[in-house]
């Protein structure tokens, strides 16, 4: 039921009198502070702050400056922001490739792009959108927002976080440079063997692809491990699992899905590179291998991958719906169970990408049923949001508009998704433009629109300024109209037999009109995205200043300044409910944790279920070693494509950089 209060036991850290929780082992009694009942300023903690302490805290958490300093920061918000910005750069680049493809397909028998270039473009478009944009941007949002949402000061392993970013940056840059020199893979983002084997793809393109995949996986796995540990161990006292914001739940489920899905693609891309470099023959039928093995391994990763980028986006939707209706989310428990269920079921669907491979019909039926069942958790979430919005005074700001657009687009994509779960129907539309339409409805509707909403929503927290509402609405209108014009006709093209991944088509096929309309839509869509990006850039300078909480939201990232100080919040809050910010406003009181030291990077470790304080962890500060380690690893991964000696070189480089990284520091030192 939509109770405003959560009456689960909250542990014993809430003390009725003082509402402070003090670290039992604190030796620093200087800043216990006095409590004052300041009822006018409810969102400020009821303790008096010492200027000196704030200065010390700032010094301890500050990111280094200067050119070299640029490679050193480990603060969670800086890394998260870098992930988001880099991912959007790839979104623009891959989007431009998409536009070029639409231009090529606008008229029949077009010669704007020759087939070998077109094939590189769609391979890079797909790979970049999935690996370089969708996963990193959602990881970026999770890294940026979750630690603040759970009221801590940094991730559990800040240096690992930085390492993950540099690995991603290096791998993705190499991948895109390959496109510029015309050596990108041209075998599709799925790289089916034998087409991607050495015999049919002799260039370095596929080698670069497998290497890049490994980079992105390493990066995703570091982010996933970070998120899991941070979410489970660093929550503010009192934030029991059943008080965790839905977005945090979604990030947690995403992280677990990454941990279970990524090994499969690491295995498959490693087997592929072995096949290519040393002829191991895992996928070569003449050598006793099997091309279908690749498909199983790839889709065992590839299908959960879709939900990896969907689940956190749905978390963003839940956040935005809550804020812009100013209401408790209806059916919190149902939504959380749905998210977790989606995570599990998504691992049982992969064969629906392989219905046409001639597997036995009865065996495939299991996957048909599982694929259709995933409609239930998603349906539950959609109707929970509708129930939340029921009769509310909704504020139609840009983030909410993107969420409304999401409803329209995602529901269509979900319905066609259920259709293609049907084996006989899928045998007809599989690998046609019907599928292209379907997954763009799901991915742009289910992921990109919430992400853009999230960008408008969290931009004030990132930059301290608001994005323009007017241009935000213009952007939404262009995106929504452009998207539907571009992708809706593709359903019909698929039914008319237009296969995917064709660089052109004969005029006699009768596909010309719809393709032309689709191309027009693609340009409108691109104009919409461009409007948002210019809006974001311009608002950095001219945007109106945002206060702490411009949307009157209920989660913890909004109690601190915009942008937050390097330590996120002056005091770690104590949480008593699911909507702490709203409740503090009502109760005129905001309990906080005291006793963390200000002169070094301390975070509070709490228990997994009930978030009872257990210990203080001292997290490491800025360091150049994660960057150097990423370089060392890259030398090996890329160099090995050209000569085996790089494996040895990289081994020693990595050895030295890890020694530097783990050189003992003395967090216990009393200085």
């Amino acid at each position, binding site marked *: 039921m939509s109770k405003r209060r959560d009456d689960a036991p909250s542990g014993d850290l809430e003390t009725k009198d003082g509402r402070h929780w003090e670290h039992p082992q604190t030796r620093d009694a200087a800043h216990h502070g006095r409590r004052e009942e300041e009822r006018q300023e409810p969102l400020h903690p009821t303790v008096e702050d010492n200027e000196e302490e704030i200065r010390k805290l700032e010094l301890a958490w500050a990111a280094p400056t200067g050119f070299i300093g640029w490679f050193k920061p480990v603060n969670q918000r800086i890394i998260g922001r870098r992930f988001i910005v880099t991912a959007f750069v790839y979104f623009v680049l891959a989007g431009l490739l998409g536009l070029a493809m639409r231009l090529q397909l606008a008229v029949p028998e077009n010669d704007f792009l020759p087939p070998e270039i077109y094939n590189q473009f769609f391979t890079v478009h797909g790979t970049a959108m999935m690996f370089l944009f969708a996963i990193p941007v959602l990881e970026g949002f999770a890294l940026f927002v979750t630690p603040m949402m759970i009221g801590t000061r940094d991730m559990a392993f800040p240096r690992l976080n930085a390492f993950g970013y540099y690995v991603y940056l290096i791998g993705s840059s190499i991948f895109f440079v390959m496109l510029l020199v015309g050596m990108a893979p041209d075998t599709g983002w799925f790289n089916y063997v034998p087409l991607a084997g050495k015999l049919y793809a002799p260039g370095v393109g596929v080698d670069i692809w497998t290497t890049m995949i490994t980079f992105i996986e390493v990066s995703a796995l570091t982010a996933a491990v970070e998120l899991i540990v941070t979410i489970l161990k660093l929550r503010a006292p009192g934030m029991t699992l059943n008080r965790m914001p839905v977005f945090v739940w979604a990030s947690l489920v995403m992280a677990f899905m990454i941990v279970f899905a990524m090994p499969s693609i690491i295995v498959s891309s490693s087997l592929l590179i072995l096949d290519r470099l040393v002829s191991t023959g895992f996928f070569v*039928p003449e050598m006793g291998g099997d091309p279908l093995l690749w498909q199983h391994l790839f889709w065992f990763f590839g299908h959960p991958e879709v939900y990896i980028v969907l689940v956190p986006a749905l978390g963003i939707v839940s956040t935005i719906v809550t804020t812009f209706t100013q209401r408790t989310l209806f059916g919190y428990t149902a939504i959380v169970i749905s998210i977790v269920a989606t995570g599990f079921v998504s691992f049982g669907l992969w064969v629906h990408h392989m219905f046409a491979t001639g597997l036995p*019909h009865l065996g495939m039926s299991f996957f048909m049923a599982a694929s259709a069942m995933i409609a239930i958790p998603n349906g539950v979430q959609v109707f929970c949001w509708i129930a939340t919005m*029921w009769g509310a005074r909704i504020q139609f700001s840009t983030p909410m508009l993107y969420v409304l657009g999401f409803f329209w687009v995602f529901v269509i994509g979900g319905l066609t998704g259920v259709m293609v779960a049907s084996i*006989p129907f899928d045998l007809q539309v599989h690998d046609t433009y019907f599928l292209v339409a379907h997954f763009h409805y799901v991915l742009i509707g289910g992921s990109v629109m919430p992400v853009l909403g999230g960008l408008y929503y969290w931009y004030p927290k990132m930059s301290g300024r608001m994005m323009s509402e007017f241009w935000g609405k213009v952007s939404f209108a262009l995106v929504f109209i452009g998207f539907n014009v571009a992708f809706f006709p593709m359903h019909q093209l698929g039914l008319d037999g237009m296969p995917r991944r064709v660089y052109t088509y004969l005029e006699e096929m009768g596909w010309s009109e719809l393709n032309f309309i689709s191309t027009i839509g693609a340009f409108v869509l691109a104009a919409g995205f461009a409007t948002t990006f210019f809006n974001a850039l311009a608002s950095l300078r001219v945007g109106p200043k945002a206060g702490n909480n411009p949307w009157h939201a209920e989660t913890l990232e909004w109690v601190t300044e915009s942008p937050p100080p390097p330590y996120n919040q002056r005091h770690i809050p104590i949480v008593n409910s699911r909507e702490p910010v709203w409740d503090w406003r009502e109760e005129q009181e905001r309990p906080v944790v005291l006793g963390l030291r200000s002169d070094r990077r301390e975070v509070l470790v709490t228990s997994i279920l009930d978030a009872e304080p257990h210990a203080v962890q001292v997290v490491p500060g800025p360091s150049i070693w994660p960057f150097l380690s990423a370089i060392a690893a890259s030398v090996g991964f890329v160099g090995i494509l050209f000569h085996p000696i790089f494996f040895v070189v990289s081994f020693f480089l990595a050895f030295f950089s890890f020694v530097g990284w783990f050189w003992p520091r003395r967090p216990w030192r009393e200085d």
Partner: protein
Amino acid sequence: MLVQLRFIVRMLSIRSAIVASITILLIAGANATSITAPATDDAARVANLWWGFLAFASFVFLLVIVLLATAMRSAFAAGESSQISPRGGWYLVLGGGVVLPLIAVVGLVGSGLWIGGVIARDEPASGLTVEVSGKRWWWEVIYYDGAGKEIARTANEVVLPVGRTARILLTSDNVIHSFWAPNLQGKTDLIPGRVNESHITPAKVGVYRGLCAEFCGVQHAFMAFIVEVREENEFAAWLADQARPRTIPDDPHLRRGLEVFLAYDCGTCHTIRGTPAQGKMGPDLTHLAMRESLAAGTIPNTKGHLAGWIGDPQAVKPGVLMPPTALEPDDQEALLAYLASLD
């Protein structure tokens, strides 16, 4: 909403235009590829499945949009904001989020099992077995008799008798392709190291176009084929024609053409049964003149197109594996005349 509506209207008119303009024939006069213009019982079942899906999905979509609009009404109206009762909310969530999808799942899985089972059933005892082997980027078509002995070999055109179930064996010795004639049957992949099967029981005489549906490299776009459904007796005559090997022509001009064919090493890749040309890389040309199209459904089989194709295949189909052949005008004339005689 308007945008969507306009598109639906637009698409309906395009659809009827296509149906009405079957006379604007595709290359070789094939019907427009479409899964909603079925020419077999199997394809008709799937087409009906699609119409059912479309109706149900439209209903669900409209339901969601109407509920969403109802939920938002207070945001526009002047009245008080209201909240859904917990009971009402749970009815909504259970009804829309559990019951509705469950109905869909049961219907979808039931229909999928039934129709999928019918399609997958291993039935043909009609004795007609055709192997379709995917090449880069064309289709080799081999007809077998009841004992599994090869009768004839051709390329890019599958001729089937109406009303008889053809067992189609799908193989590949290179990359993965997918055999798909939308009006006849769903697609099945051709996977190296495996033999997949598809069954087609044509219900109507006609010419249908098929495509490769799995990305197979640089010329995936132009890897089409034609399925021609004929009456039983016409089919038998056609197959007998195809089985016939050639003899060395008596006409000196045609014989000169064959000599040109051999002199320019065309026989290294192509077979013309009954002549020294026994290459296996490219399509069997024994009855080239009986085919409707060249280069896997890319250009019509006319003298001019054939000359252009032989002279510069890359211009027609960039990336194709066939090398260009520069011919003296006399040689070209003789070769084209010879190839035109291969009926």
